[in-house]
């Protein structure tokens, strides 16, 4: 791989048990990892468990990490997705949407209720997608991985990824038909 891994130097320091590097890596990766797991599982508590478990894997892997075999971020996404799929298989049912985040106290009650309802609606729609469609959308849209990286991570071709993405968007359109996304008024 000719492209340099932007995380390689930091991971090497984590492997050497540098406490500053540990804090930096957590600050850099935890928000993305938590967002990925939350959207895949639709459950905040389960997502936090996945994030913690993923970091335990990092601590074990970091001393042995070799730059050039795979990008660290790609490897981390694979670990997190495997942990998510383990839990989804354990649930044997479609994940439920998480509760809305804490309401914005500055917004009026009517606007707040309306925003919360719309937020809950998109979460339900995302949660109702077949897991592979949701995975493709989460990796490409929310995690902002390139189509090549997302396809490689999922073990499929770019054509197959595009097909999953298009079907995911069509499903969302069907589910959300007749409801405008509105503007976030909070």
């Amino acid at each position: 791989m000719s492209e340099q891994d932007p995380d390689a130097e930091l991971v090497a320091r984590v492997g050497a048990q540098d406490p500053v590097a540990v804090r930096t890596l957590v600050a850099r990766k935890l928000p993305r990892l938590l967002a990925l797991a939350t959207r895949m599982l639709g459950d905040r508590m389960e997502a936090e468990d996945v994030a913690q478990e993923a970091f335990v894997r990092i601590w074990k892997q970091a001393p042995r990490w070799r730059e050039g075999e795979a990008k660290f971020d790609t490897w981390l996404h694979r670990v997190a997705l495997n942990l998510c799929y383990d839990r989804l298989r354990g649930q044997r049912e479609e994940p439920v949407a998480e509760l809305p985040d804490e309401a914005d106290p500055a917004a009026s009650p009517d606007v707040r209720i309306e925003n919360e309802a719309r937020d809950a609606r998109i979460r339900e729609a995302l949660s109702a997608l077949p897991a592979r469609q949701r995975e493709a959308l989460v990796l490409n849209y929310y995690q902002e991985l390139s189509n090549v990286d997302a396809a490689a991570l999922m073990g499929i071709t770019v054509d197959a990824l595009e097909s999953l993405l298009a079907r995911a968007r069509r499903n969302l359109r069907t589910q959300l038909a007749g409801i405008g996304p509105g503007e976030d008024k909070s």
Partner: protein
Amino acid sequence: MTPERFHTIVEAYGADPRRWPEQERADAQAWAAAHRAEADAVLAESAAIDAWLARDQVAPPARELQRRIVESAPVRRPSWFRQHVWWSGAAIAGVGLTGGLAGALAVSFFVLTGAASSMHEPSVHESSYLTTGFGGSPDDWSDE
């Protein structure tokens, strides 16, 4: 860029050209500029889904979660901490050793000073003080 490929790109990646495949982005934008009406219809439909997707925000991780994760990592102690621990251990060992030596010195001092003073003044450990009333000399019975 064909019309079919433009449709596929927008249906898969959305209406925002920044999300389109980098190697096709310029061609797709040029096609859209050249076929404004057809492109706008496709883009508008996809932009509505983009707006929905953008609504889904995940709250940032709580400090408590960050703390738990950081604490789960095996970390090497900083050098100042290791030195501090070393000096603390050395200090404790030093105090113990000093105490032992002082005790030994004190015992030696009392033993030596006790032996010297017994030559000039009565010792509290004189043999008469150590005997009982029944430990008198057998001469006491000689008068009988």
